[in-house]
């Protein structure tokens, strides 16, 4: 029975560092502290999130909408770009496969802030792309000007999260029994039909892990929007960061964090409808 006891130190650790912090965040979210330092239960933080207006515009609601829209767009783009990559990879020879996996993972060893920052050099008004295009087209005004817009943030998200979509899909495609494809073809299914009815349904667990790994970080980032979207650009992550770090308003920041977690739970419930297996997040890449 000595072996069961191996888990006890971890369980204590888990309660202190996973459960208690979340309870604290929940507590701050549903309380307010007044001028005199008295703390009372209140839903004011959530009310503020949904109703506060600046110049007739519900500012936090529009931030949430933009976060969700960008996260959704980046997820769709990653899926559209990444699925074919994963599919092509499964058809490669073994040695080529491991080289490709290596090439997909290698960029992650370079600090993502530095990599994202490098896009500034490429996208700037007098950056690389514009320099080349201006010379080619013989113009002296910038040809593309997307830095500090939604498009630049979207690009940054796709750039950072694409490997997280490709690798889980690749893992689930790789596990597939190739005889199933042969069987489908023997039974007269064409290439497209085989893909739609056999290959794709079997890769859904990978797609689901990919979506969770792209969607949530996208909705929660504040770094990409900070660098590529300019400082005034606001995603939910920026609201949380500035509430906690700049304004020191834990109550409001916690409320936004709770809303983010609810969003995460909701999206996982929806996704679990498609995937009966256990979703393991980033560890699905192994």
């Amino acid at each position, binding site marked *: 029975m000595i072996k069961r006891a191996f888990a006890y130190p971890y369980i204590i650790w888990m309660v202190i560092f996973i459960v208690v912090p979340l309870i604290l965040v929940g507590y701050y979210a549903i309380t307010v502290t007044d001028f005199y330092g008295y703390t009372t239960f209140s839903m004011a933080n959530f009310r503020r999130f949904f109703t506060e207006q600046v110049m007739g515009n519900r500012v936090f609601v529009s931030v949430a909408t933009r976060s969700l829209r960008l996260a959704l767009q980046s997820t769709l783009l990653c899926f559209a770009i990444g699925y074919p990559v994963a599919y092509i990879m499964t058809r490669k020879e073994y040695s080529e496969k491991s080289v490709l996996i290596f090439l997909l993972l290698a960029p992650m060893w370079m*600090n993502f802030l530095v990599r994202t920052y490098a896009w500034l050099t490429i996208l700037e008004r007098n950056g690389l792309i514009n320099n080349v295009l201006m010379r080619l087209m013989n113009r002296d005004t910038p040809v593309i000007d997307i830095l500090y817009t939604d498009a630049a943030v979207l690009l940054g998200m796709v750039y950072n999260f694409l490997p997280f979509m490709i690798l889980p899909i690749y893992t689930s495609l790789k596990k597939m029994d190739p005889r199933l494809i042969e069987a489908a073809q023997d039974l007269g299914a064409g290439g497209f039909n085989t893909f739609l009815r056999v290959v794709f349904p079997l890769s859904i667990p990978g797609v689901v892990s990919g979506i969770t790994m792209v969607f949530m970080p996208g909705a929660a980032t504040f770094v990409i929007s900070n660098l590529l979207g300019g400082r005034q650009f606001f995603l939910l992550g920026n609201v949380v960061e500035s509430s906690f770090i700049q304004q020191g308003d834990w109550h409001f920041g916690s409320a936004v964090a709770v809303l983010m977690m609810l969003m995460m739970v909701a999206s996982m419930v929806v996704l679990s409808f498609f995937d009966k297996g256990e979703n393991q997040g980033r560890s699905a890449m192994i």
Partner: protein
Amino acid sequence: MTRRFALHSVTKKFYLGLVLFFLYAPIFVLMVFSFNESRSRANWEGFTLDWYRVLLNDPAIARALRNTLLVAIFSTAIATTIGTFAAVGIDKLTRRARTLVMGISRIPVMMPDIVTGLSLMVLYLFVIRTFGFGRMGFGTLLISHVMFNVPYVILSVTPRLRRIDPNLYEAALDLGSTPIRAFFKVILPELMPGVFTGALLAFTLSVDDFMVSFFTTGVGVQNLSTYIFSQARMGVSPHINALSTLMFLAILALMFVIHKRDKIHAKRMKERMDVI
């Protein structure tokens, strides 16, 4: 038929090439610009190694790099130990308890990093304010990295546990081994591949982390990520590019060595299987 196939494979190669170009373009750009004489990001003004010299003489970077490596090494070691023992113990819990513990362990894996970071910050500051001792710094940074690394170790080790023959452990006990000795001699060697994967994942995530570090470190203690972030607001100096280039090459070399070692290991395993 052959013709169509050939076209197909060219299209595929082109597509893969395009995606890889997208992933590597910024890396290539920052490597090239780490040799640029001008401080400007946009214009190439000649080759220099000055930024590498600046890098070597920058104490702030040296401190940040040291913190990153220390946190990564210690958090990997601690998380791998806690996680491996935890995985073994969890496997022996009742079904209900196991589901609960695994469910909670999965929270940090699924949760956005920003929520992990700020919830830990709230915990630390709550304790510091209520009990009036301690402060945010290297300690809280290390604990936080251990916290988000442990679940990955557990998730990598657990699948290996399922493959162990329980009779081996029993046999060791019957032959007079103590349970602890049996654990180290019988169970642990079987778990090693999972432990190794978990440790590698933990180390990578720790080095790469920004969000959790940003919220849980204290004044004056910076790792590379938080240092670069604080610099980025004013414009990253090319010597950061120089550092990234060096680190990238170092990890590339390390991975190459591990890959070679794995190959040798696999070969040896195969030989052993052939003997049996």
